């Protein structure tokens, strides 16, 4: 399973502005971003418009079409209760996407606030925060999630919280290191000489310059969260059936691997495609942000 590797900030990339129309154009003309959108676009489109597609509902059983291999009628085949697997997979993607987005947003926000405070004020706050992150980073991520789920119970919210809690320390570390490099810059000193307040310095001069690297990290965190959620659900500790999550779809098919290969393998391929495209996306954003990699 992929692990969350937060990219170290490129030294000069921090001052680069991608907001506005120009940034968008550069992003859209980047080859990796295009490739990512090429894979992710259709998957997202089908997921969003699933209710309007000529597909049976994800929970709809059909006793006359049990364990059917992929055909024109059922593109991904059906499971042992005759439920359409394409429909279930798309419903699973919806959950995955939600988990990925929620985890990325939550850990980015918490990491941003706590990392900025630790990096900007230093001293005791910093030391306490670093000790706490050290403790959280002492757990392998999936195992921390398993432990937290055992306390909070299964379901969507516990899963999102459990995965976020293992990502937050990484975001705090990243944000702290970004703030530390920015804090000693000349333009911050310049702002101090005109009596800028601490709050002004943080919100106007430091935080905006850390957003770009954080976004790169967030898209990797989203991909990672989707994989961890699938792993937890696969172990029976995440999203519980009958709600279809990509992980428990794969778990479902494990028992019938010999008779019905498609139940496990096809949803797994979809996870892989999503993870690959999110990595391409983060790679693309990084390339656009880093002036050194521009030709």
């Amino acid at each position, binding site marked *: *399973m*992929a*692990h969350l590797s937060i990219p170290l900030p490129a030294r000069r990339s921090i001052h680069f502005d991608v907001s506005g129309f120009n940034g968008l154009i550069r992003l859209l003309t980047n080859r990796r971003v295009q490739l990512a959108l090429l894979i992710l676009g259709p998957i997202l489109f089908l997921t969003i418009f699933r209710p309007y597609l000529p597909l049976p509902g994800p929970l709809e059983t059909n006793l006359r079409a049990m364990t059917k291999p992929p055909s024109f009628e059922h593109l991904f085949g059906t499971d042992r209760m005759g439920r359409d697997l394409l429909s279930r997979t798309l419903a699973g993607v919806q959950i995955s996407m939600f988990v990925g987005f929620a985890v990325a947003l939550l850990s980015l926000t918490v990491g941003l606030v706590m990392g900025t405070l630790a990096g900007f004020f230093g001293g005791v706050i910093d030391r306490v925060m670093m*000790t*706490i992150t*050290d*403790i959280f980073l*002492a*757990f*392998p*991520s*999936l*195992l*921390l999630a*398993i*432990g*937290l*789920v*055992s*306390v909070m119970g299964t379901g969507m919210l516990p899963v999102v919280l459990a995965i976020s809690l293992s990502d937050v320390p990484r975001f705090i570390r990243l944000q702290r290191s970004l703030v530390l490099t920015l804090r000693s810059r000349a333009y911050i000193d310049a702002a101090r000489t005109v009596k800028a307040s601490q709050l002004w310095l943080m919100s106007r001069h430091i935080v905006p310059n850390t957003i770009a690297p954080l976004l790169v990290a967030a898209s990797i965190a989203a*991909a990672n969260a989707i*994989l961890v959620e*699938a*792993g937890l659900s*696969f*172990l*029976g*500790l995440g999203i519980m059936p009958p709600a279809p999550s990509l*992980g428990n779809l*794969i778990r479902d*098919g*494990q028992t019938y*691997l*010999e008779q019905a*290969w498609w139940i*496990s*393998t096809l949803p*797994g391929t979809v*996870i*892989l495609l999503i*993870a*690959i495209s999110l*990595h391409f996306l983060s790679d693309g954003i990084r390339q656009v942000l880093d002036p050194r990699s521009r030709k």
Partner: protein
Amino acid sequence: MLTYSLKRLAQLFVTVLGVVTLVFFTMRMIPGDPISAMAGDNLSGAALDQMRGQMGLNDPLLIQYLKYLGHLAVLDFGNTVTTKLPIVGLILGALPVTVSIALGTILLTVLISIPLGTLAAYMAHKGHRMLDNIITGVAMVLDLMPSFWTSLVCLLIFSLTLGWFPASGTVSIDDPGQLLRRVALPVLVLSMAQVATLARITRTSVLEVLSEDYVRTARSMGWSELRVLFRHALKNAALPIVTVIGLSFGNLLNGTVIVEFIFTLPGIGNLLVGGMNSRDYQMVQTLIVFYAMIFVLINFTTDLIYRVFDPRVQF
């Protein structure tokens, strides 16, 4: 060096204490206690109370915590709630399986990814971008394949279709041949995920070294390309590679839980999942602490190795 090691050791101690404390208090936040979960509706209130008393669950939380620390200090992890077996015994019984998976994976990963990464770096250095791109691309896809899915695909191909490896069956260290056959596929699956990271780091660090002066000097002395690559370049690029092997151990531990579950191997990962499913919190708590300790110790050792072997690192 000594001061540094002691300082790191103190830090390690604080982290481990933090881990234990965090796990202890988090587990106590679970609504209801293990006794009522275990007994269900079959026991009266008085009987439950008596059992709680026996297990020390009626003591104040702080006393329970201190007692727990005391037991941990002498490596007494207590008994499982459901079967009343000593947890230490279970862990020791399961450990050989997990250790053989982990060591096998590290060995296979190193054997594949170091030559592959070095080759990619050499090709990139020589300007053959094609092969370099292929190796890097394949490494990325392998990295992102969820290991539970790869396991199932491998199980489908190698066990069910080709019949090369048994998909189930007993495992014990007394029968190394059987153990090897059962562990082969999980090791293959986990290595596929690890190869990517290690090959990438090998590529980067070898590529960096290849443009150093001493590599040019070695070439000018007429050594063969292979000798320059492996004796001079790889040797100097080895340190980051060793570090990454150490750091990727966390992923490896995550992975062993998944493959042990799929291939029904009686390792500590399966103990953990079993403990979760039977709501045996004592077991889950102990295992999580155990995993964290292994992980922290390995990181600590990696850090020390790095500093012992790199004369450039200042203390």
